[in-house]
């Protein structure tokens, strides 16, 4: 079925048009025209504008604003629109009505993915057209326009898929906005190390900034060195646009599969276990590949004798990102206890062998193994002297993912609908509270007890930290995991006892 014959797309188009597109198009046109008129005014009388040294610089400035608005409208607006439309249609029962038709799950997903944000597409198209005029008038290379538009539209499609999944997952429409704010919040730290952080390529900030940087006259903006040149993965330079598109396509492929699977059967987890491991593994490989050039396998000795930053915050940030990624993928595959009980009822297996294949705990161990192998790339040639650091980091990762997956399932079993609140409470106690208490009592010793601390400290300040102390903390955290495991086991047994 072609897109224009897809009933979901047709209906979304009707709904968008009934809601009105003229006002939105005019707003986009007026914003674009204002920026264009600014450039025209400069070109007509350059002496009146002290802030620009050339037409190229002025062109970059006005084009930068144009695509800024375009990103805001298309990527953020489109994501919010898709997740909100899907959330509302689920609540109204229309999603189920559509699922009951013979339409294929992929047709349903495509219809919402490309149909719901049509108004935003129209606005972006107008801004893109005005942006082209600005680029031409500013005598900027056409590759700037082409490259940036490709990246914006690929990001819009990527975020659109994310919006579909969020809309299918969250009960309330505002859930999508919260998700987006959290995503952007976690993006900020990576701006400090643009060429080395994966998130700068998944959201193509590096690619776009690099296009500006490499398009002639330097100007005042984007003059930072870190935004220049090609990123390298294990020493292989890769064009940033290509890297961004490849990463978005790779993650988008799994998002697509998850959305289609969830549409076909909402009762199964969105990702298979192998998909989770593949997604986690490849993202970790790319991330570690990006930072390979700094230590070249000899952490903590910098291979290039010092960079624009000394690397102290780089690997701890990567470690934090690994924990965050593990948190997200484990939440995706962590089973709802009720579905496990139903499976146990179906199969008649009521002992622990019914739980392990379903539980996320086993997967947490696999993810730790994958992370351990990938992280080894930073320690490969200095393992003899830095194995303790490595051990602390991997031990910390193991503790974190084990405690998180056990906690998630324990709270779901114990508190059911209130589970999320209790998971947040326990994570706050284990991860954040020690930092607060450390600040209150002005002692780093308490802060080190945080579940996040050992790995970050070991990687951030390996020369001045006593690794044995950190190992002790890691072992202590493992004790918490063991206690949780006992409680978790008991709760599962109680649940299975009810499977009659």
């Amino acid at each position, binding site marked *: 079925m072609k897109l224009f014959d897809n009933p979901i797309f047709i209906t979304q188009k009707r*709904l968008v048009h009934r809601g009105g597109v003229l006002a939105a198009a005019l707003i986009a046109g007026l914003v674009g025209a204002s920026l264009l008129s600014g450039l025209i005014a400069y070109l007509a009388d350059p002496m009146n504008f002290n802030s620009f040294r050339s037409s190229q610089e002025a062109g970059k400035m006005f084009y930068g604003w144009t695509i800024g608005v375009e990103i805001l409208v298309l990527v953020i607006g489109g994501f919010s629109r898709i997740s909100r439309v899907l959330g509302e249609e689920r609540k109204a029962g*229309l999603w189920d009505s*559509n699922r009951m038709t*013979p339409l294929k799950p992929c047709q349903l997903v495509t219809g919402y993915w490309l149909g719901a944000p049509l108004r935003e597409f129209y606005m972006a198209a107008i801004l893109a057209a005005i942006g082209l005029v600005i680029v031409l008038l500013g005598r900027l290379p056409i590759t700037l326009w082409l490259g940036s538009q490709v990246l914006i539209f690929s990001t819009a499609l990527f975020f659109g898929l994310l919006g579909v999944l969020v809309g299918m997952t969250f009960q309330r429409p505002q859930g999508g906005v919260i998700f987006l704010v959290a995503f952007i919040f976690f993006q900020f730290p990576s701006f400090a190390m643009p060429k080395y952080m994966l998130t700068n390529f998944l959201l193509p900030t590096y690619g776009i900034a690099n296009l500006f940087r490499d398009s002639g006259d330097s100007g005042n903006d984007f003059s930072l060195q870190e935004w220049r040149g090609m990123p390298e993965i294990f020493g292989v330079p890769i064009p940033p646009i290509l890297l961004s598109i490849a990463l978005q396509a790779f993650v988008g492929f799994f998002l697509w599969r998850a959305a289609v699977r969830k549409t076909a059967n909402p009762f199964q987890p969105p990702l298979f276990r192998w998909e989770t491991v593949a997604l986690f593994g490849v993202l970790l490989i790319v991330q570690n590949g990006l930072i390979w050039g700094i230590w070249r396998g000899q952490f903590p000795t910098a291979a290039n004798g010092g960079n624009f930053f000394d690397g102290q915050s780089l690997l701890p940030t990567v470690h934090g990102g690994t924990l965050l990624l593990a948190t997200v993928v484990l939440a995706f595959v962590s089973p709802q206890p*009720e579905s496990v009980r139903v499976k146990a009822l179906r199969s008649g297996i009521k002992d622990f062998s019914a739980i392990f294949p379903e539980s996320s705990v086993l997967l947490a161990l696999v993810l730790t193994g994958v992370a351990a192998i990938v992280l080894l790339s930073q320690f490969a040639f200095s393992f003899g002297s830095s194995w303790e650091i490595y051990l602390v980091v991997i031990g910390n990762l193991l503790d974190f993912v084990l405690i998180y997956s056990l906690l998630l399932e324990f709270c779901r079993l114990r508190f*059911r609908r209130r589970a999320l609140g209790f998971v947040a409470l326990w994570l706050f106690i284990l991860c954040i509270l020690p930092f607060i208490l450390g600040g209150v009592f002005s002692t780093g010793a308490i802060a080190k007890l945080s579940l996040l601390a050992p790995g970050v400290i070991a990687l951030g300040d390996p020369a001045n930290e006593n690794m044995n102390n950190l190992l002790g903390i890691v072992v202590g955290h493992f004790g918490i995991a063991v206690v949780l495991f006992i409680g978790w086991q008991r709760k599962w047994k109680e649940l299975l006892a009810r499977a009659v």
Partner: protein
Amino acid sequence: MSNPLLAIECLRVDFPDVVAVNDLTLTVGAGEVCGLIGPNGAGKTTTMRAISGLQECTRGSVRVNGHEPASEPDELKRQLGFMPDFCPTYDQLTASEFLDHFARAYDVPNRTKRIEECLELTWLTEKTNALCEELSRGMKQRLVLAKTLLPDPKVLLLDEPASGLDPLGRIELRKILLQLREAGKAVLISSHILTELSGFCNTAAIMERGRLVTFGTIAELGQKMGRRQMSVKWRADDGKALEILKAANVKNLADTNLGATFNFDGDTNALDELLKTLVLQGVRISEWRGTGDDLEQIFLQSGAKELM
């Protein structure tokens, strides 16, 4: 029944604290309208959602005209129409656009003509170009019914279809259901208003706490319940009729003015014999009415008593 259009076997649906549907087995054949009756929380809606694939089943099987959801989901979807107990409509679409959406989704041939037919069948022709948000609840209910009928499904699941309808709407709904029955559709319909179902249901399934209390044709159920309530009226009172009834060992015999009510334990043949005796003995019968095959009576006697 040789080849039922809807066959449910040992269906079980589990919720965290309750077995919502427990070991449910029932069939609905062509030209049958089966009333699914039960108090709140009996499992009627869950049963319908499980049949339509919107609710995960723990075990059991569902077949729609021989098609199973796991192996032939597309064919099953084409042959099954589900009307939920609320009205999911696109508020910003017109009635005809709403139907067009589903007509395209079901790939209905002669789309425009079929949409007109369905709008006419549900008395919404005048509202063809009205936005869904402008329709009353009853009209939305009829629009969703039109949407359900659009692909001409063989099996229809109607969950409380009359809940938002005014008295006239209910009468019209009854007519539609009779038409569907005559057209050879299999209809499973749930309702709290039992008098509404009794006019056109030829079978009934009574559920309570997820279990099927009883299932069968209305006449079979009347007999299963053991005792049917009868009402008889005659033109002249000479005492003969009451004597005959007493001799027939009827229960709870009550003398009404020129008539009587009583409970009868025997089967239909025995009841026919009793009527024959009365007539042969010269009693001029003006009314002979059995209330024992009324769904409400069946329901009340079934033990599922939390009826609204």
